[in-house]
C-alpha cells in the first residue's frame, strides 16, 4: 500500500514542479492544471516554499482519504484510542473489551478476619424442587451480616419439576434491585444442568438405605459441577448452604470464619413436634473416624459407600450431632473426618488444591463425607463445632404424618365427646328445675353461723394470749425452748425439696433412652 501511495504523490510532485517551473520561467505557457494565471500581479512567495506547502497539503489529503477508506473497509485496523471521548472514533467493542487478567493466589488464602481484608466468599447452593423453601432461604440471605458485595452467589438448578428456576430468578432480581446498594450481592450465576436423575426427592425415598449410595453420588456430581463452574481466582472462601435451613445466626459466616480452619461445620439439629421429643440431631454425616468403621471399610467392595445413620452399617463413630450441649461453649472445636453438607465453610484453597465431593467411592465414602476424608488426606484441618447449632427444617415423614393424623382424629373424637357431654348437661339443666338455689341459701346460713362461732373463739384466744404474754415477761427462759421447735420443722422440709429434683432428673434421663429405643 505504502509504495503505491508515495509513488502517486511523487508523480504529482513532478508534474507540479514542472508546471510551476514553467509558469515561473515562461509566463505565456499557462495551460498546466496547477499553473497560476500570469496576467494578474500577485505577490509571490518563494516558489520552493510554496511547492513544499502544496506538497504537504496533498500528502495530507491523500493520506486522509487513504486511511478513511482503509478504516472503513477494515474496521479491525482502527487504532485503540482508550476509553475516553475519543473511543467513539474507534471500532465499537474492541476498545471496551478487556481480555487479560492477572491474579495472585497468595492474596486469597483466607484469614480469620476476612471481612476486614475484603475476602470474597462464594456461596453455593444446589437446588432441586426447592421452591417451597426459597422464601425462607432468601430471608436468611438478606439477614447475613457479612458485607453482601463480597458474597458471590452460585446456584445449580437441575431436574426441577416445579417453578424453582423462575422463583429463584425473580427473587434474585428483586434482591439486586434493592434501593440500598449495601444489600446488593456480588456476582450471581444460575447454572442450569439436568443430570436426568431418577431419584425422587421426597423425604421417604431420600432417606431410604438402598437409595443412599446412588443418591449421594449424584448429589456429589451436582456439587462438583456447581463449584467448578463458579469458583474464581478472587474467592478466598466457599460456603455451602442447604436451602432448607430454618434457623441460623445472621453472623454465621463470621462465626465460622473466626476459627480460621480449612473446613468447618456447625452442628445441625432439627426441631420436632412436642410428641416426638421437641428436637433431634439432624445431620449425622459429621463424625470422627472409628476403628470399627475402618475395619468395616476394609471388608467392603471397592464401589461400596458407607452411609451413616442406618442399622446396616454399625460404625460406632462419635457423631458431632450427639455431642451437643445446649449450654456448652459455642466456640468449642472437635476434629472430625466426615462432613455434613448442610452448612460447610471452607477456604477456597481447599477446593483449588483439588478437594471435591467424590462422585465415586473414595475410601468407601461419597459426597460430603468423602469430601471430609479427602480434605484430611491432603492434610487440611477439618473441624466441627458441637455446641454451635443451626436448625434444619422439620419435614414430617410418612410415619409422622400418619401419627399426626391419628392424633388429630383422637383430638377430634375427644372434642366431640366433650361437646356431647356439655350438650347433655345443658339438656338436664333446662329440663329439670334446679334445687340448687334453696341449697345455697341454707348453706349460706350455716356458714354464717360457723363464722360467728369462729369469731367468738378468736376473741377468746386473743384474751388468753395477752394473759400469757404478761406471764412471759415475768419468766424469760421458757420462751427460748419454745423457739427451737420451728427450726427442726424447716430442716425436714428442706430435705424433701432436695429429694424431688433427683426424681425429675431420673425421669429426664429415661426420656432420651426411650427416644433412642424407639
Amino acid at each position, binding site marked *: 500500500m505504502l509504495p503505491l501511495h508515495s509513488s502517486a504523490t511523487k508523480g504529482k510532485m513532478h508534474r507540479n514542479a514542472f508546471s510551476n517551473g514553467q509558469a515561473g520561467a515562461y509566463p505565456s505557457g499557462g495551460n498546466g492544471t496547477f499553473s497560476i494565471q500570469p496576467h494578474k500581479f500577485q505577490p509571490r512567495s518563494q516558489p520552493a516554499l510554496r511547492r513544499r506547502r502544496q506538497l504537504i497539503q496533498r500528502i495530507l489529503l491523500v493520506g486522509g482519504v487513504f486511511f478513511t477508506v482503509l478504516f*472503513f473497509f477494515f474496521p479491525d485496523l482502527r487504532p485503540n484510542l482508550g476509553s475516553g471521548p475519543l473511543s467513539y472514533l474507534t471500532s465499537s467493542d474492541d476498545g471496551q473489551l478487556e481480555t487479560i487478567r492477572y491474579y495472585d493466589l497468595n492474596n486469597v488464602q483466607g484469614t480469620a478476619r476476612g471481612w476486614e481484608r475484603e475476602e470474597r466468599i462464594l456461596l453455593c447452593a444446589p437446588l432441586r424442587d426447592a421452591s417451597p423453601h426459597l422464601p425462607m432461604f432468601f430471608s436468611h440471605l438478606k439477614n447475613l451480616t457479612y458485607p453482601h458485595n463480597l458474597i458471590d452467589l452460585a446456584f445449580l438448578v437441575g431436574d426441577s419439576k416445579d417453578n424453582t428456576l423462575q422463583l429463584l430468578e425473580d427473587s434474585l432480581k428483586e434482591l439486586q434491585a434493592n434501593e440500598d446498594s449495601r444489600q446488593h*450481592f456480588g456476582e*450471581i*450465576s444460575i447454572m442450569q444442568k439436568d443430570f436426568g436423575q431418577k431419584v425422587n426427592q421426597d423425604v421417604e425415598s431420600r432417606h431410604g438405605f438402598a437409595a443412599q449410595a446412588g443418591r449421594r453420588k449424584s448429589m456429589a456430581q451436582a456439587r462438583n459441577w456447581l463449584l467448578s463452574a463458579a469458583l474464581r*481466582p478472587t474467592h478466598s472462601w466457599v460456603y455451602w448452604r442447604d436451602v432448607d435451613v430454618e434457623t441460623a445466626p445472621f453472623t454465621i459466616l463470621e462465626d465460622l470464619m473466626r476459627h480460621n480452619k480449612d473446613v468447618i461445620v456447625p452442628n445441625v439439629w432439627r426441631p420436632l413436634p412436642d410428641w416426638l421429643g421437641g428436637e433431634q440431631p439432624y445431620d449425622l454425616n459429621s463424625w470422627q473416624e472409628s476403628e470399627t468403621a475402618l475395619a468395616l471399610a476394609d471388608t467392603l467392595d471397592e464401589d461400596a459407600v458407607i452411609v451413616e445413620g442406618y442399622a446396616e452399617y454399625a460404625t460406632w463413630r462419635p457423631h458431632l450431632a450427639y455431642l451437643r450441649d445446649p449450654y456448652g461453649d459455642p466456640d468449642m472445636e472437635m476434629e472430625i473426618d466426615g462432613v455434613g453438607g448442610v452448612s460447610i465453610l471452607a477456604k477456597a484453597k481447599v477446593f483449588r488444591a*483439588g478437594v471435591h465431593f467424590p462422585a465415586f467411592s473414595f475410601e468407601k465414602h461419597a459426597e460430603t463425607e468423602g469430601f471430609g476424608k479427602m480434605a484430611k488426606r491432603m492434610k487440611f484441618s477439618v473441624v466441627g463445632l458441637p455446641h454451635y447449632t443451626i436448625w434444619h427444617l422439620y419435614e414430617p415423614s410418612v410415619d409422622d404424618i400418619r401419627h399426626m393424623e391419628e392424633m388429630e382424629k383422637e383430638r377430634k373424637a375427644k372434642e366431640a365427646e366433650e361437646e356431647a357431654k356439655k350438650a347433655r348437661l345443658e339438656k338436664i339443666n333446662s329440663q329439670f328445675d334446679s334445687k340448687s338455689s334453696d341449697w345455697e341459701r341454707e348453706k349460706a346460713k350455716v356458714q354464717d353461723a360457723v363464722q360467728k362461732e369462729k369469731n367468738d373463739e378468736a376473741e377468746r384466744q386473743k384474751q388468753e394470749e395477752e394473759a400469757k404474754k404478761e406471764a412471759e415477761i415475768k419468766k424469760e427462759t421458757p420462751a427460748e425452748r419454745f423457739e427451737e421447735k420451728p427450726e427442726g420443722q424447716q430442716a425436714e422440709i428442706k430435705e424433701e425439696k432436695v429429694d424431688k429434683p433427683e426424681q425429675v432428673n431420673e425421669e429426664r434421663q429415661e426420656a432420651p433412652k426411650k427416644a433412642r429405643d424407639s
Partner: protein
Amino acid sequence: MPTPRSLRRQNPITLVLAAILCIGFFIFFFSGGDGSSSLGERTGSTAASVLSPPSLPFRKSKSNEPPAAPPVVNYYMNNVTTSRTPIENEEKVLILTPLTRFYQEFWDNLLKLSYPHELISLGFIIPKTKEGNAAYAALQVQVAKTQAGSKNKRFASVTILRQDTESPLQSQSEAERHKMENQRARRGAMAKARNSLLFTTLGPTTSWVLWMDSDIIEYPPTLIQDLAAYDVPIIVPNCFQRYYNNDKKAMDIRPYDFNNWIDSPTAKEMAAKMGKDDILLEGYAEMPTYRSLMAMMHDPAADPGTKVKLDGVGGATLLVKAEVHRDGAMFPPFAFYHLIETEGFAKMANRLNWESWGLPNYLVSYSSHSPALVFDVTC
C-alpha cells in the same frame, strides 16, 4: 473581490478530495454507530462484570458511572456440547499451561493454532520463583502484544495466576527434577498447581480443556480439531523430543513422556504390596513395572489414526472434555491408588467411568532446549 479569486485559485481536485474526505468521515461516524448497536448480539460471549468467569472477556466499566449491582446471569450448561465438530458447534476451548520456563516457540505455535482464536481462552499458572518471574515477564510481553494486535489472532481471554509453590525445589534442572525421591514432592506440588489453575479458570461455558506443557513447541496447527475428532473423554498424542543423534549424524526424535501407559500385572502386584502413601513411578530402573508405554508404540509406518486405550496419561499435551473435570476428576496431589498427578487423574477419571485414549502415531514435540532425560528406560 477576494472570494471569487480564492475560489478560482482552488484547484478542482482539492475540492473533490475535500468532499470525499467529508463523506468519508460521515460514513465513518455512522458505521461506528452501527457497530455499537450490534454489540447486544454478542453478549453471550462476554462476561457481565469483572467478577465473571475469567474464560470470558469482560467489558470495561466507565469509571465515572456508579457501580451497578451485578446482574443475575443464567448459564445453560445443558447446551454446552463436546462433539466431533467443535468449530461448527462453537465449542469453547480452555488451554491450560503450568508455566515454569517461557519458550518463544511455544507462544508462536500457540498463535498458529487454526482453531478460531475467539473460542480459545488461555490460562497460565506461574510459581513465584526467580525462574518464574522471568517467565512471567516474557509471557506478559507476548500476551500484551497478541491481545492488542490484529483481531483474528486475539484470544478470547488470558488469565495469568501466580502462586507460591509449596515445596520449591530450588534447582529445576532435569537431573535433579527426575530423581526418584524428589518426584513425589515435585509432582504433588505440580498436581496442586494444575488443580488451582483448572478450578479457577474452568468457566460454565467451557467445552474442552487442553493441557499443554510450556516446553511443547511443535505440533500441527489443527491439533485441537484433530484430537477432538476422536470424540473421546480424554486423549493424548505421543510426545517426542528432537535431538541431534550423534550416531546417525542427523536430527532424530526420541520418546519423552513415559506417563502414557497401559497397566501391567507386575505393576498391580507391586501396588498391592505398597503402603498407603507410596507411589509407583514410571521410567526408573529400580522400579521395573513392565507397563506398556505408549512412547514405545510409535511406528512411523503404521496408520497415524490408531488409538489405544490407556490406564495412565501424561500431561504434556492432553485434551479433556470439560465434563470429566466437572464430575470431579482432578490431579491427585496424594497417592491415589498409588498414582499421582496426571497418572492419578486417569485413574480417577476411570473411577468416574471416563476412558483415556492415546494416539501413538500422532506426534507433538518437546523443546530440544530441555535437556535429555538422564535415566534409562526399562522396557
